């Protein structure tokens, strides 16, 4: 046996090690070129933990039984999912073949160019049974409303398909009220009429940032106010906006629960479900999860669900909170992921999805009487989607704007600032933020 020097030994070890460690990379590289056409064994979905991804988890095995492709769902809490996706997209990572996205995230991901276009790459077309707004919300740049300055020259493409048709609605105790409130004046009148000790005329979801923002935006819009006008000029300090916030934080607050500034959706649902409150805004997941939940709610069958009542503007405008499925640019299994979304959209499969707790986007399913018996809010959701609802301003700065606005509304609810001062201060802060990001605010 030939003896080798120590130097030669080190050299040979390094060469052998490098060869072995490069094998997976070489195999992966070979796979990259073919995987979009080959059938993968599994699709990995980054999903939000909670009521929104529950039905998806249930229909995943059905897709596996049909195609042999496993649907692996990786769950994250809301905030974590967002930051996880942002970092994955920044690195153009291939960890996820599909991702669930809240619709306000669309501007961020659209601006980043993080997703694969579903129309031009995979042949997605609009279905007449699904409201246009559902497709519009997954389109970037947005087909209506103001477009961020940096995005105005980009071609519009569909990047996300709604799988949870969420629109903020209104709920009230139909066993107590003789007629549904059609305006915010009716809401106020009912709040005053039914408010008594340990029974609140109105529930405000006023916790700082997202909760306070979500709760107040439909009122803001229905009063003719807005965060921005069509040219990205801040409108929060307009008379209409201040009137809307004054209505919520002064007029309705008289009949609201104590500590409204610390109340989030779960607390609101608890108050409604134990029969301690008359009315509030609501999201579909709150209805099925708590308010109409067998075994825990005391108001099953006593609640009515309607679109957001009209304000002085003559309109009642709900807010979209759709959850979409998109395909990250880094995914090597784009075709298979698109096939899964198409499968989800088929009427029969969407019906199965609804029977497993999902919220549909097909008008035919929302108006299906059988499904409506177990989901009493479906007709209101169909009307809200047809209205159509507003989406939150399509800017990648929305998280910052919402934080500023939601904190200001919270300050007004807590009585730390007058509604006018809170809106003036929020408007000034948002202007600075938007100007810093290149907007003409």
């Amino acid at each position, binding site marked *: 046996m030939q003896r080798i020097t120590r130097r030669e030994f080190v050299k040979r070890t390094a060469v052998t090690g490098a060869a072995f460690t490069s094998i997976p990379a070489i195999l992966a590289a070979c796979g990259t070129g073919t995987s979009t056409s080959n059938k993968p064994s599994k699709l990995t979905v980054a999903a939000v933990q909670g009521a929104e991804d529950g039905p998806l988890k249930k229909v995943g095995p059905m897709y596996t039984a049909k195609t042999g492709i496993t649907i692996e769902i990786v769950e994250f809490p809301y*905030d974590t999912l*967002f*930051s996880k996706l*942002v970092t994955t997209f920044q690195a153009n990572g291939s960890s996820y073949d599909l991702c669930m996205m809240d619709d306000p995230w669309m501007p*961020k991901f659209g601006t980043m160019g993080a997703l694969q276009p579903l129309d031009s790459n995979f042949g997605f077309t609009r279905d007449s049974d699904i409201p246009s707004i559902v497709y519009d919300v997954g389109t970037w740049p947005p087909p209506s409303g103001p477009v961020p300055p940096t995005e105005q020259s980009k071609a519009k493409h569909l990047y996300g398909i709604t799988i949870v048709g969420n629109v903020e609605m209104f709920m009230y105790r139909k066993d107590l009220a003789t007629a549904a409130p059609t305006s915010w004046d009716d809401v106020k009148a009912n709040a005053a009429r039914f408010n008594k000790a340990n029974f609140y005329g109105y529930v405000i979801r006023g*916790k*700082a*940032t997202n909760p306070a923002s979500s709760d107040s935006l439909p009122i803001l819009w229905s009063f003719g106010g807005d965060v921005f006008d069509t040219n990205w000029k801040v409108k929060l300090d307009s008379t209409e906006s201040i009137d809307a916030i004054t209505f919520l934080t002064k007029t309705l607050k008289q009949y609201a*629960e*104590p*500590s*409204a*500034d*610390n*109340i989030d959706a779960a*607390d609101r649902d*608890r*108050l409604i479900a134990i029969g301690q409150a008359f009315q509030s805004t609501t999201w579909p997941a709150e209805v099925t999860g708590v308010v109409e939940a067998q075994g825990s709610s005391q108001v099953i069958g006593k609640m009515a669900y309607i679109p957001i009542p009209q304000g002085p503007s003559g309109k009642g405008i709900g807010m979209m909170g759709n959850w979409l499925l998109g395909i990250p640019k880094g995914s090597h299994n784009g075709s298979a992921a698109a096939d899964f979304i198409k499968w989800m959209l088929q009427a029969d499969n969407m019906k199965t999805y609804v029977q497993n707790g999902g919220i549909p986007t097909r008008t035919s399913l929302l108006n299906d009487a059988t499904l409506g018996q177990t989901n009493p809010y479906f007709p209101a959701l169909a009307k809200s989607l047809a209205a159509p609802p507003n989406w939150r301003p399509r800017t*990648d*700065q929305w*998280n*910052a704007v*919402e*934080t500023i606005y939601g*904190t200001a509304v*919270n*300050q007004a*609810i*807590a009585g*730390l*600032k007058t509604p006018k001062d809170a809106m003036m201060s929020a408007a000034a802060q948002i202007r600075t*933020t938007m100007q*810093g990001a290149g907007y003409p605010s």
Partner: protein
Amino acid sequence: MSRLVAELPAPTDEHPVRVGRRRRGRQERLAYLILLPALGTVFVIVTIPFIVVLIQSVTADDGSFLGLRNFTRALANPLFYEALRATGVYALIVLPSEIVLGLGFALLVHRTVRRAGLRATLYVLAVLPLVVPPVAIGVVARLIYAPGYGVLNIILERLGLIHQEIQWLSNPTLAMLSVASVDVWQWTPFVYLVLFAGLQTVPRESVEAAQVDGAGWWTQFRYIELFYLRPLFLLILFFRLADVLRVFDHVYILTGGGPGTTTQLLSLYLYRTEFKFFDTGQAAALAVVVLVSISILYSLITRVLPLERA
């Protein structure tokens, strides 16, 4: 004589001093080699991120150099000063409370509990709050203070002490006291454990001599035990100040920084700047400002409580 010669080391050409130096050099190299993994780890998980933060604090998202613009933006933001004030108030509530309570418990147990079994039990009980995940503590605290169903209000009502719900999390002062109380509950045991360990190092003879001379409880503490505990106070202040700057979970769960921004501590503000505003430059600049401030604060504390006296 011949035996003695035989036992002497064989003569070498090298000077003994040179041999000693070489041996020391080898030992030093070995010491550095042993330290290398630890230093490497510190370099990877502390130094590199710190350098990255420093770079981010003077650059834009696209990598272009901004000079001190991120710092001026961060320092011009009134929310930063609100967060700084909230953190200061929080620290002023929790640090003295934890030190006084921890010291009180330590002295009480040291002087009154003699049975080893009971001391061990108290030790285990004191460790428990320290190992509970902060998120779990936040959730439990919310069950205590929440409006509508908070246990504290229910107890106070049943005892007849209140007739109307106290809005623990909605009144700015009460909200701050509520979030601070959670910190006091979790970290007083840490102070107790450190000071109790310190009390065990006090020489028994000194205490007994003082007692013979008629020293009372206070004199004994003031002139003997406090002397030995002084460096530990410095240690506690170091650790707790660093923790106060990192407090996040229970405040986020209890108040989310509200009402308004009254409980928005620096950590929450930094989190929002980075993960809500996605303003990495400003967040990095803030982190550097906080680091420099805390370094100055630490040096001031070190001057007030000199270690060398112990």
